[in-house]
């Protein structure tokens, strides 16, 4: 039997949807009992939210003032302290999980399975390599703990309605003070979160300026969509880095993805290959984005995007 510990991601007040995605991966591991660990400072509500997620057997709440902000250097030793007895420790392939989980793996003396996209057995997984140009089936040794990150875009979110027990435990570990949180500069937005939005409108370099990017925001607002961007648009300074979609940005799987003025470099396509429907608007009919788009429109974006927005508005 597998005993799985899923590390919850949260911002101090609410549970990140990545946790439910990790659980959706965990339930595919055969014959598993799944616990969730919440490292927090005043995390009662977060733990209760985790306890409602299906398939959770219990939630472990580890309260510590040091857990006020999730630093890998602080959480990793605590996670290792509670790891004995678990065969699998999973976290999301978000910047939180990517930062934390390899530290945990190293402290446990194992390599990590990065970006699980499919579960083939209790120690056998598929993961993307070469920016998604190849898929590797990998088998980890069954006689040591398995530490992995879950490619959240590959899994549907798990349901809720559960009422698992929440257990406060302590994790005895030496917590270092060599790493200090200073500040988080989060983009303020009332729009749906890019990583979990069911619709996303993205703009590329062809927008030409941050002012011009407004037509992307307008269309997104009409659709109730999140906003994304290509690396080129972020590098050019049109929008902040957290909007980047692709290999080194966010990997997303919305039902509808509208790529506007994005040529479709392989690194960008990696970030959207699990989208339900891809729409591309680009004036270059040879742009690679049209090779993967379900619906393509070859046109000048400055003409058709406002027109599309007005049509949908009315």
């Amino acid at each position, binding site marked *: 039997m597998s005993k799985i510990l899923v590390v919850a991601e949260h911002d101090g007040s609410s549970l990140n949807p990545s946790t439910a995605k990790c659980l959706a991966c965990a339930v595919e591991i055969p014959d598993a009992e799944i616990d969730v660990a919440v490292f927090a400072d005043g995390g009662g509500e977060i733990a209760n939210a985790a306890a409602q997620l299906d398939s959770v057997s219990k939630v472990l709440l580890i309260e510590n003032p040091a857990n006020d902000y999730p630093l890998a250097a602080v959480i990793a030793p605590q996670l290792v302290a509670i790891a004995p007895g678990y065969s699998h420790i999973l976290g999301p392939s978000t910047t939180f999980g990517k930062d934390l989980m390899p530290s945990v793996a190293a402290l446990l003396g194992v390599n990590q399975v990065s970006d699980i996209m499919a579960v083939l057995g209790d120690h056998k997984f598929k993961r993307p390599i070469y920016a998604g140009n190849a898929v*590797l089936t*990998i088998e980890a040794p069954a006689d040591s703990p398995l530490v992995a990150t879950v490619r959240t875009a590959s899994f549907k979110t798990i349901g809720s309605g559960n009422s698992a027990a929440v257990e406060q435990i302590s994790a005895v570990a030496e917590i270092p003070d060599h790493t200090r949180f200073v500040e988080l500069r989060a983009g303020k937005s009332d729009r749906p979160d890019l990583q979990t939005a069911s619709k996303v409108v993205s703009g590329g370099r062809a927008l030409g300026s941050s002012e011009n990017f407004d037509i992307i925001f307008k269309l997104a607002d009409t659709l109730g969509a999140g906003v994304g961007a290509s690396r080129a648009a972020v590098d050019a300074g049109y929008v902040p880095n957290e909007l980047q979609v692709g290999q080194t940005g966010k990997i997303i799987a919305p039902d509808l993805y509208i790529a506007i003025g994005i040529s479709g470099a392989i690194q960008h396509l990696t970030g959207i290959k699990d989208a339900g429907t891809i*729409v591309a608007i680009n004036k270059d009919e040879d742009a690679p984005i049209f090779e993967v788009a379900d619906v393509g429109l070859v046109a000048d974006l400055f003409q058709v995007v406002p027109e599309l927005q007005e049509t949908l508005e009315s």
Partner: protein
Amino acid sequence: MERIIVGLKRVVDYNVRVRVRSDGSGVETDGVKMSINPFDEIALEEALRIKERGEANEVVVVSIGGTECEQQLRTGLAMGADRAILVDAGESVNPLTAAKIFLELANRESSELVILGKQAIDDDNNQTGQMLAALWGRPQATFASKIELNGSSARVTREVDVGLELLDIDLPAVVTVDLRLNEPRYVKLPDIMKAKKKPLDHFAIADLGVDAVPSMTEVSFEPPEQRQKGVIVEDVAGLVSALKDKGLV
């Protein structure tokens, strides 16, 4: 500080369209252009800028792999690194083994800063830097887009999912770099000539007293599922009706 260590991994060039071998045994690398992992190139550029600001005395580039990695180390020396170390491993090693090698070198070289790429673009593992920091018991600042040194500590700006995060870390420390940290310099011909005279030392993994960790079993490789090319519509009305047909608007 005295010394910065930078890791340089030899990988299939960023611009090569990688293909899986038809027998599923791996990806085609025969005759394919190889380069420094782009994130590692950014790591080296940052180390060089720190040195050029007078905040470090020496930049040492390290690669782990076969003799052919000398090419990437020579490029690193031509960019401006002072010396190079090649840890002979036949082929590239898994992240935990790499982390153990960097730990041993960081200790031997009394390095106050190890700068690595956040991930290699071949295996996309994104593990080595974090593992090194954990084994070393030192701070990590991953996905850095800005590094400001401040005596015995550094303020690092990190690219995280919600925006930018600022951390203060004590040195020695490990920083892994993201794309927007800097733009690496081009190598000039005279520098390539000069680089030939710079020291490049070889070590075997065993010489470093590192036990290589066994790699996971690579069962098979396959190409990703391809999305099918869809329809091209003529105008906005066509687009809206296609979206309506799919129940998306």
